[in-house]
């Protein structure tokens, strides 16, 4: 599978979704972090968007790898190393996978596992993983059940949104919010929110293909 022509519009859609929610994301990271998450992400996305011409020439494995290296070398911060690792790992996994539900689930899962490993974190620690892991679980069970595309995409959005919202009442045990103890409760994690926004945009864009 080498058609990566869906990437440029997808990246653009993600960029504009993040920009539309910039103030909210910034406020989330200011409340229990240091406020830079949305800036970091936008810097990374901008760099990725500049690669569009190159990305469409690549197969999806190489494209994911390229995106990962770009995020890694432009974002910085905790999220830069994590998202960078995720995409690089997805790129590696994609080498052996078809671009079907099965393949996408395997590739996405490899990405999430690399975040868990790099961040030494798991579900329930008030991080982006609280969005990413439920989506992985949803994908895995939909793959097993051979769910149809509409169901898969709608489940992604539900899992991402519920996961993101679950961070609100958590105590944080990873990331900057962990320094705040009880004071972190009541705030949604910024990385969980951006992951949810991105996954929802991806689901919406895939539904159009």
């Amino acid at each position, binding site marked *: 599978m080498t058609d990566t022509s869906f990437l440029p519009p997808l990246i653009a859609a993600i960029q504009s979704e993040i920009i539309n929610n910039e103030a909210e994301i*910034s406020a989330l990271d*200011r*409340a*229990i*972090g*240091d*406020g*830079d998450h949305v*800036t*970091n992400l936008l*810097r990374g996305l901008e760099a990725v968007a500049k690669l569009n011409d190159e990305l469409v020439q690549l197969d999806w494995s190489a494209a994911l790898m390229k995106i990962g290296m770009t995020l*890694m*070398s*432009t*974002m*910085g*911060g*905790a*999220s*830069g*190393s*994590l998202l*960078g*690792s995720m995409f690089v790992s997805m790129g590696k996994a994609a080498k052996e996978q078809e671009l079907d539900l099965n393949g996408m689930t395997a590739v996405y899962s490899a990405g999430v596992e690399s975040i868990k490993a*790099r*961040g030494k974190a798991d579900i329930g*620690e008030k991080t982006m993983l609280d969005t990413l892991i439920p989506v992985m679980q949803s994908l895995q069970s939909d793959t097993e059940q051979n769910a149809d595309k509409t169901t898969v995409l709608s489940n992604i959005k539900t899992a991402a949104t519920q996961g993101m919202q679950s961070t609100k009442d958590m105590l944080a*045990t*990873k*990331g*900057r919010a*962990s*320094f*705040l*103890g009880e*004071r972190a409760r009541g705030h949604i994690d910024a990385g969980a929110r951006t992951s949810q926004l991105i996954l929802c945009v991806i689901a919406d864009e895939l539904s159009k293909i």
Partner: protein
Amino acid sequence: MKKLINGVESVLEESLNGFARAHSNIIQFNHQPHYVTRKNKPENKVALISGGGAGHEPLHTGLVGKGMLDAACPGQVFTSPTPDQMLMAAQEVENGAGVLFIVKNYAGDVMNFEIAAEMLDCPHETVLVNDDVSLPKNHSTGRRGVAGTLIVEKIVGAAAEAGADLAACKQLGDKVVNSTASMGVALTSCTVPALGQPTFDISDNEVEMGVGIHGERGREVMSLTTADDLVHILAKAIDEELKPTKDQRVLLHINGFGATPLMELYLVYDLAAQFFEERGIKIVRSLVGNYTTSLDMAGCSITLTLMDDEMLQYWDAPVHTAALRWGI
């Protein structure tokens, strides 16, 4: 937001340009990616590399030079640098004796340095600085690295300059970390250029106790009280951590966060010195000033390092960087 800048996009690059220009006798600035290296590094000396988000100046760029760091990798403001910065800096300054990374314990710094280290194909070690005792030792992410980092960099820097090998530098760095404790209090937030507003709100009669150095809120909000009370809280936490015994020699470092005048920092020094001297502890070295800052945050931290002969000798050894200089 009131700042002497031309725009939030260009502030970091322009500031690094100015730094490079002002100190071109001792350092060199690489633009793509950003890193600062020492000029005239001797052959076969362990290469010391540190880095972290910008906004803590003079840390770390101002500590590159003879007797301290060989390279520093500044990230965006309060954002850890990226692995390619560290990797390229390491490749440039490594010359036969390996690389020692000195990393403040923050998720972003740790993970980005880790990735760089994994990609580096020469002997390397990492010293993780986690001197902030505002968090319990068993905190889920470990404690943060704050103003004690400078002390690690100075002492290990002198050892490397004197010819210590990679293993010895790593061991000494860990020793300094284990001998160092810090804690800080903020009177105001800082304003990150890209945000254009203070990171947190705080009322006129509150302080944030137990803050890190990225403008995050602290462990708890407290009522603004006297310097006596605030220093007592900080010094007590440090004392309980390090448990210095009578006649123990120490280095006492009062670090300003950027907007607190020297007049207040020296006042804090006086109170902290009294606190420790009353316990029979011997303050043999001191450092007072803005070294590990949070942009324009008001407040300060106290750092104490238990010193032995070896550490004292390395602390006193000549150093020539933009921010610390003696003996040269």
